[in-house]
């Protein structure tokens, strides 16, 4: 229920006073209510959640995010090559208890978690 997935609008229609449409998810087409994204156009990508478009996917932003990620990789490789030992060991710890050992065995101090 809780997953919203991006799809492309392939049909827009008025369904007895309600803005509806068909949305294509990589070949699978489903009816969806477009009432909350009235500015959506044919061909736009929207996030569909329980049959409703709840957001329009900004194509430029989507591409930008990927470009930044790709570019950061190269910068990072250079940076990595000049850097001393970091926290580079893959973690053993996460959800199966507290920090396992090493420099992080001690509990965090100065945590900004509590009410201030």
């Amino acid at each position, binding site marked *: *229920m809780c997953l919203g997935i991006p799809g492309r609008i392939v049909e827009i229609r008025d369904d007895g006073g309600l803005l509806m449409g068909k949305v294509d998810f990589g070949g699978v087409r489903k009816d*969806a209510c477009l009432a909350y994204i009235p500015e959506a156009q044919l061909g736009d*990508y929207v996030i569909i959640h329980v049959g409703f478009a709840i957001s329009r996917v900004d194509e430029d932003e989507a591409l930008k995010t990927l470009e930044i*990620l790709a570019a950061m990789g190269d910068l*990072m490789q250079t940076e990595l090559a000049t850097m001393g030992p970091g926290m580079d060991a893959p973690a053993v710890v996460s*959800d199966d208890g507290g*920090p396992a050992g090493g420099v*992080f065995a001690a509990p965090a101090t100065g945590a900004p978690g509590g009410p201030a």
Partner: protein
Amino acid sequence: MKYLDEYRDPVLAGKLVAEIHRITTRPWTLMEVCGGQTHTIVKQGIDEALPEGVRMIHGPGCPVCVTPLEQVDKALAIAARPDVIFTSYGDMLRVPGSTTDLLALKARGADVRIVYSPLDALKIAVANPDRQVVFFAVGFETTAPANAMAVAEAARRGIDNFSVLVSHVLVPPALVALLESPTNQVQSFLAAGHVCAVMGWTEYEPIAAKYRVPIVVTGFEPLDLLEGILMAIRQLEDGRHEVENQYVRAVRREGVPPAQKQIFEVFEVGARKWRGIGEIPASGYRLRGKYARFDAELRFSVGDIHTQEHPACIAGAILTGEKTPLDCTAYGTLCSPQRPLGAPMVSSEGTCAAFHSAGRGLAGLRTGSPAMPLLQIAPIPPARSAGTAEVSR
């Protein structure tokens, strides 16, 4: 599929992991709020690829898991009536009530139907004018626009044999409840991208400021989550506590105003019980008085029912991040996705089910094959490639 596959690229994931390792100097505890995010994090092994000491606590953002037992029992009482067609999102069918669940009730002859959208429940009501059609309106702010529209449409089109059993919960009050808890360990939140797509993030700004916690609005794909974690750790390392938006392609600061307008036309904010947590003031939606005739609780006079959780189930501690499923004696033995004891094992977004489907801690009692973690395909580039490396600190 476009806008999905690009955000699962293992090479980019490896780069993000390396960057996270590079900037992290201290242990940090983060919480991803949404069950969909938990599912990705556990399935892809993202939490296990993080630097030592960086811990992901899995948040309470699974609506199936937090729907209180009372509401499930009310659903069961209504669904058992012969004049009722009970409709629900599929995930709710196997949520255990105190004696049975909707699926078992259906097997015994009750008319229980899974719908994908609340508008499908409305269609069923139109097609069955001589029956009562009830929709189980659960969820966070993401399903609220849909559920509100179904009620508004029923009113507009005079579909009087339709009603809703409401159990709507809100994210910001839950974050405050967690932060106020004396056992809180969370230092930063990854906020749920789609909740913020609808509501925007202005509600989170005072929380970030008051409790000095960085909050990063984050998407659901592996790269989104890794970038969200990176942004959160960067803030923590810098000593900042702002609301930042990782999920720029889908979330704007103001959200989707027409959806908010519809929500507040139909619903008002009220206290809600959360399964495993208890009552949180102003933490959910209930129908406004002018839509009371669509309230299934009033229509079928289902009173309050008080019931006990299974004694072994530690769902409450899991929802607040104090414990993990591996701490539960029933995990994988008495309790499995096939026979769930508690709600976090029911929905695939629940923490217990996410652990189970990834095969966590099931060695020896493993039933299914664990998912292949993305990050195994993309080994983490070690930061110690330079000649300066390997010196002890």
